[in-house]
């Protein structure tokens, strides 16, 4: 089933060329729905064990010790689910823009690469998918992006490539530590990494951490992010923030923490501090933004900082909270960027001060946007609450001061979200917004399910939490064992 998930988007993206450009979005949408159904089947069949369930594990490039190993456990499954849920929404949300079939082809290729990243059980394969994911999103931003996109997307590309090359060097180094004729197999890399002395684990830690930190992005590796998010087309931004930044977080869970547990133990505090700085920094800058999209871009830095800090606390509620928050953030940030996309296509501006009074002319839109916004504020009974509660709790257990500082995210988040809501939705209508049309049928079709997901996840998150629980417990017990033995 997982192999179908991996190959179907690629096949579908090639199929697209057989259809007329006008039908492209329908074909892509149907293809992504099939993908969603397949992933749901996988979720229901999943037995919630801790072990990785391999779908395939065969030698691919024998002379380099590379295996085509695809498998999943609860952690992978949650992220695969996030990908397959979001992509249909993203495709459905794009119909106003009349993109060409190449666009949908790239989106589906991106989906393939993302699922590959989340299920690769071989270091080299992981690196390959990690890089392949960059290519479609780069072209989506380059071809359909806004002003000055050449320069900004190039910066994005070089920045992230620099990080991943560091990761590649670290992986090759680990590879040469594996016994015998060397292998990139995940267990072999785990054992090689754990056997390294502390100092070398530190180097590996930084090589991998910087790669992941750039992708998330964690302060101070975030400078590509606001520009890229604002210049990318709306659907590109949704892919970037909704799914792609989770690649970095997933990388930390799967390819950093279990590989060099002693290194993580040694440097985890630094990572948590950087993440917490990112929370405060992102929130403060978000408060003064005039452009709605940039505001959400900076708020994304704050949110991802909290998730990353939670993972590096290395306690169970932290990692579980991080996973649930990844899903929730993906859904919420999609809702926010779609809301901005709707505003922008109608009134041709994203500047907050030019907006106002949308609530009077578009009550349905305003109501839906309120729910998404409250989710972002982590109001109880929304999906954001579960994750943020667990995360702040875990940081507080790790270090009370950091927990208190990180907790400010809720207050600061309320400041920038409510301020922007007030400026855009409340107040008097002006000449730009008075002709604002309320949601169309297709937009409702996208946003209503999103609202339902936000509320259901907030009230009853348990099924999702239980999927990853045993995998997370297993992960943390390994970390404790090896960071203790390294001392």
């Amino acid at each position: 089933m997982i192999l179908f998930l991996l190959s179907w988007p690629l096949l579908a993206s090639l199929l697209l060329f057989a259809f007329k450009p006008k039908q492209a979005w329908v074909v892509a949408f149907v293809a992504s729905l099939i993908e969603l159904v397949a992933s749901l089947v996988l979720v229901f069949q999943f037995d919630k064990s801790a072990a990785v369930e391999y779908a395939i594990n065969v030698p691919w490039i024998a002379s380099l010790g590379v295996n085509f190993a695809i498998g999943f456990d609860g952690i992978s499954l949650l992220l695969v689910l996030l990908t397959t849920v979001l992509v249909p929404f993203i495709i459905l949300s794009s119909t106003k823009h009349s993109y060409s079939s190449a666009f949908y082809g790239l989106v589906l290729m991106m989906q393939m690469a993302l699922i590959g990243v989340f299920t690769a059980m071989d270091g080299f394969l992981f690196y390959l998918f990690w890089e392949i994911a960059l290519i479609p999103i780069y072209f989506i931003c380059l071809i359909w992006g806004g002003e000055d996109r050449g320069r900004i997307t190039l910066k994005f590309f070089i920045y992230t490539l620099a990080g991943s090359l560091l990761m590649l060097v670290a992986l090759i180094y680990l590879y040469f530590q594996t016994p015998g004729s060397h292998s990139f197999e995940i267990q072999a890399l785990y054992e090689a990494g754990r056997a390294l002395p502390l100092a070398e684990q530190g180097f590996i830690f930084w090589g991998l951490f910087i790669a992941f930190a750039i992708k998330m992005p964690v302060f101070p590796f975030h400078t590509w992010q606001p520009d890229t998010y604002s210049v990318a087309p709306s659907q590109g931004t949704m892919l970037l923030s909704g799914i792609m930044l989770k690649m970095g977080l997933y990388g930390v869970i799967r390819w950093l923490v279990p590989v060099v547990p002693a290194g993580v133990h040694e440097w985890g505090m630094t990572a948590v501090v950087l993440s917490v700085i990112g929370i405060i920094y992102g929130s403060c800058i978000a408060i003064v933004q005039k452009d709605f999209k940039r505001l959400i871009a900076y708020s994304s830095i704050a949110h991802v900082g909290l998730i990353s800090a939670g993972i590096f606390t290395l306690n169970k509620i932290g990692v579980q909270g991080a996973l649930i928050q990844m899903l929730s953030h993906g859904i919420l940030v999609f809702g926010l960027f779609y809301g901005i996309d709707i505003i922008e296509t109608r009134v041709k501006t994203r500047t907050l001060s030019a907006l106002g009074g949308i609530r009077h002319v578009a009550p349905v839109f305003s109501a839906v946007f309120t729910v998404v916004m409250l989710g972002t504020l982590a109001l109880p009974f929304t999906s954001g609450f579960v994750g943020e509660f667990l995360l702040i709790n875990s940081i507080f257990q790790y270090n009370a001061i950091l927990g208190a500082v990180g907790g400010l995210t809720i207050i600061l988040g309320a400041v920038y979200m409510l301020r922007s809501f007030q400026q855009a939705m409340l107040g008097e209508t002006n000449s730009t917004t008075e002709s604002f049309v309320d949601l169309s049928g297709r937009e409702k079709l996208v946003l209503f399910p999103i609202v339902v997901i936000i509320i259901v996840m907030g009230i009853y998150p348990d099924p999702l939490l239980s999927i990853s629980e045993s995998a997370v417990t297993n992960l943390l017990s390994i970390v404790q064992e090896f960071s203790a033995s390294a001392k």
Partner: protein
Amino acid sequence: MNALLVICGLGFVSLLAEIANFKKLLTVLVILALAAAVVLVVLDWNTSQSLYHDMVVFDNFALGFTGLLCLVTLGWYWMTRDFFENHPHQSDRLALVVFALAGGIIMVSFNNMAMLFLGIEILSISLYVLAGSNKASLLSNEAAFKYFLMGSFATGFLLMGIALVYGATGSFDITKISAHVASHADSLPRFFHAGVLLIFVGMTFKISAVPFHFWAPDVYEGSPTPVTAFMSTVVKTAALAAFFRMFASCFASVEASYHIVLQVIIVLTLVVANVTAVYQGSVKRILAYSSVAHVGYILLAIMSSGSAASGVLFYYMASYSVASIAAFAVLQAVELSSGSTGVDAFNGLYHRNPFLAVVMTIAILSLAGIPPLAGFFGKYLVFAQALQHGYLPFVILGVLTSLIGIYYYFKVLIAMYRAEKEGPRPDKYSTVLLVLLVAAILALGIFPDHVIGLLRL
């Protein structure tokens, strides 16, 4: 060996074509002969023949590179048929190209320094003429003259070096030289090392490593685009294989006498070529500098694993040549329609001819080393070899210069996807060839094992 005979025969036949008046048949003949050469290579595989008192040795290394040279020339000829057909000097030009190829085959199979010299000269003299084959163009004349002057100077170095090495060891035969060097390691005269260094300089000129690269960009830019494509693929492959045969096998035991020089040259090549490429406004010059930069990565592999690098060298040159031919084919199509090779000529190519733009994109991504394309595995193998042998600083430098590489390669890429929709629409190209090249780039990337394994000892 049979392949070499076929190629030489083809050269003479194409000279005769003018006199005997069968020019129309030439294209078919060329394609048949090159294909036959490839088939002969396959048939000779695993039969290590040494001929003419060990003047040439056709071991698997030589056979592999002979096959690669013939295949690349075949693709190249397909792409540049317009350069030959319906041209008054068709048979002369073709003969020159074929003789250059013969020189290249000698360079990859020599076992005697006299043959090395002969091979280099056969190759170079043909190229001097080809570089100036666009007689009406001032730039083409300049290229030919510059190449000739600098080339003959480098040949002088090479000859002087060969003479000194002969004086010290009493032989031209590289197996005998390396045996002599191994048995008399302590009693070698000083001028032997001077000789090795002179040969080194002569060869680095031919592979255009910094600081002996100054001719390359001007010659590449001035020559007609088909000739540039030939120089940066076939010629470069032959020269690097010759360099490898000379230094990774024959002089491997005296590596100490040129080790530091090699290190300096690698650092300079990586940094200078990549940084200078950033400031170029012409795609042809960008490709020229990129071909210099790629030499830096290959030298890194040769330095770190010596004779074990043959598989890496082969894979790297195969992937580089395929991607380069694809890039040059698109460049040629754009040049024919717009008359310019500047980056501007590519503006909005995606909207004018999406097929060409996508092919160019894949070629550029491969040259830049983006997975899962062939170029990535080439770079990966180089870095892995270097890391394995403890050259971490060089790997970090290589990674940094690859990032600079992205910057200039992507200049072309970004230009292609600009919104400008107006402009000439390139239409002179072979779709089949381009599809085959793209398939080769993908196949080399997805199944690298077979090609790397070919030359494993």
